[in-house]
């Protein structure tokens, strides 16, 4: 069943036993971050970790939900699928829905997100349970959002997910770089001689919109129409209360305001997705002009830190599918691609290889995609019989098919992710590609073959799974 909005998603998670609710009083620090860390650890250890809902974060009147997308099961539920769907099938379905773009949003009046409107002295961001997620962070952070801006020339809107450090009742910073769409809008506004850009921040969103907001879709695409494609129905949008932007009508909370061009303040450090802190820097700040919300709003948070954390599950399908689709235009033999968020530094591609050297063609196509060329520093290429989402199988391919003497390619002086802890802020360096595919003629091909499962293995697996329960 496809979630209708954020609250419906919570109900689905409840019904699917994917959500643990806490009614007892819980300190904002260090406990909320510790709970996020613990459930991600549980998820990684194979036993599964739940989404969390704290009704009583100490000192706050507004509840906090977090780690809602922190598993492939809950990403499947966010997309209206069975929570037991294997990740490779999720990947394929995500790719199919990509083809449904665009499903344009519809405009509505009297939206739930504006049931309460606060302006001027009524604005107080400290009423929301915004917490310090890790002890080395420079302050409390909003980590799960859709930040909405528009191109000052064309008027086209964009939504992206960015961290935001709380600074005051009506000030919160918005760090971005020119490569981001919001950075492009900022830069264009500056070139046009504008003094400010308008921004709206949507929180507690439809779960498909959260996925769309961190999807590297083409720059001329609209994240709201992409969210519509993912959920198979249009999003409802409405005009902001104080900004000339369309905002999602069913979101729990909307923060509206403006960023003054050229005005920056100190931000950070912040425990980022690679598992290291990003350093202090100066960044623009949002001066809030209105906060609107539903009656009895629910605040949504996201724990981020040493991988894996929620951002990995939230963005893995979109990151992987975007690279696959772009690279396949040049290399249709590319079969699947795995690029988890924490691994934008590492990608794993599977391919149908027919001739010697074909892996270099796949390599070149992948490295030419914007997302991989920007952030990825290690690419592993495997054959189509290896599931790139199954790391045991990938390690087997490395152990058996990778030849260290011939299977390594270096690309020097390439663009790199500035959050890569090996070269913080440097944004260029060396990429490496490991070829873990089988050789093809005229390369020497090993005479020995793969050990295949005995006949009847699948039937016996079914019997064993039934008896084991």
């Amino acid at each position: 069943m496809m979630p209708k909005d954020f609250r419906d998603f919570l109900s689905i998670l409840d019904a699917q036993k994917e959500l643990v609710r806490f009614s007892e009083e819980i300190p904002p620090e260090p406990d909320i971050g510790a709970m996020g860390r613990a459930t991600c650890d549980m998820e990684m250890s194979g036993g599964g970790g739940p989404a969390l809902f704290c009704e009583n974060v100490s000192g706050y009147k507004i509840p906090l939900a977090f780690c809602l997308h922190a598993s492939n099961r809950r990403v499947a539920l966010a997309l209206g699928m069975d929570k037991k769907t294997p990740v490779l099938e999720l990947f394929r379905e995500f790719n199919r829905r990509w083809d449904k773009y665009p499903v344009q949003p519809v405009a509505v009046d009297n939206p739930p997100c504006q049931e309460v409107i606060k302006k001027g002295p009524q604005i107080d961001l400290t009423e929301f349970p915004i917490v310090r997620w890790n002890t080395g962070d420079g302050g409390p952070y909003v980590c799960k959002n859709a930040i909405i801006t528009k191109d000052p020339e064309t008027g086209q809107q964009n939504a992206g997910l960015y961290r935001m450090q709380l600074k005051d009742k009506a000030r919160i910073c918005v760090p971005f770089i020119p490569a981001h769409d919001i950075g492009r809008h900022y830069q264009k506004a500056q070139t046009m001689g504008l003094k400010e850009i308008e921004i709206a921040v949507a929180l507690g969103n439809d779960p498909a919109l959260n996925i769309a907001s961190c999807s590297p879709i083409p720059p001329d695409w609209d994240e709201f129409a992409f969210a519509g494609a993912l959920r198979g129905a249009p999003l409802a949008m409405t005009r902001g209360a104080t900004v000339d932007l369309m905002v999602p009508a069913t979101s729990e909370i909307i923060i509206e305001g403006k960023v003054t061009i050229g005005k920056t303040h100190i931000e950070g450090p912040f425990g980022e997705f690679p598992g290291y802190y990003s350093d202090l820097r100066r960044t623009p700040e949002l001066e809030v002009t209105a906060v609107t919300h539903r009656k009895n709003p629910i605040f949504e948070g996201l724990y981020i830190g040493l991988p894996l954390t929620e951002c990995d599950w939230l963005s893995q399908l979109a990151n992987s599918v975007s690279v696959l689709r772009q690279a396949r235009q040049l290399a249709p033999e590319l079969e699947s691609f795995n690029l988890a968020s924490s691994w934008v530094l590492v990608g794993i591609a599977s391919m149908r290889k027919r001739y010697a050297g074909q892996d270099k063609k796949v390599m070149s196509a992948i490295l030419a995609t914007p997302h991989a060329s920007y952030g990825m520093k290690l690419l592993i290429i495997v054959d189509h019989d290896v599931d790139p989402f199954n790391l045991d199988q990938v390690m087997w391919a490395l152990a058996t098919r990778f030849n260290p003497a011939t299977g390594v390619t270096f690309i020097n002086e390439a663009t790199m992710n500035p959050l890569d802890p090996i070269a913080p802020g440097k944004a260029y360096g060396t990429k490496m590609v490991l070829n873990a595919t089988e050789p093809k003629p005229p390369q020497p091909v090993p005479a020995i073959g793969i050990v295949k499962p005995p006949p009847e293995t699948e039937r016996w697996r079914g019997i064993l799974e039934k008896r084991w329960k």
Partner: protein
Amino acid sequence: MDRKCLRCDRTDCTCIGDSPVKGKWQLFRCNTCSFVWRNTEESYLEPYVTKLSEERIRSIIWSYDPTLK
């Protein structure tokens, strides 16, 4: 009482919020280095915080700032 920033040791700090449920916490911001913390964190947070000198604070930039020439 003057509050001292846990990061740069300055005392120019602003209380930016009191807990909506009275008496649970206060949020502070350092007006020199922008560090933000809750008074309920003061008993344990300092060892995790990297200290900032005046020189270091002055050197912090937005390296991507398009308005920089």
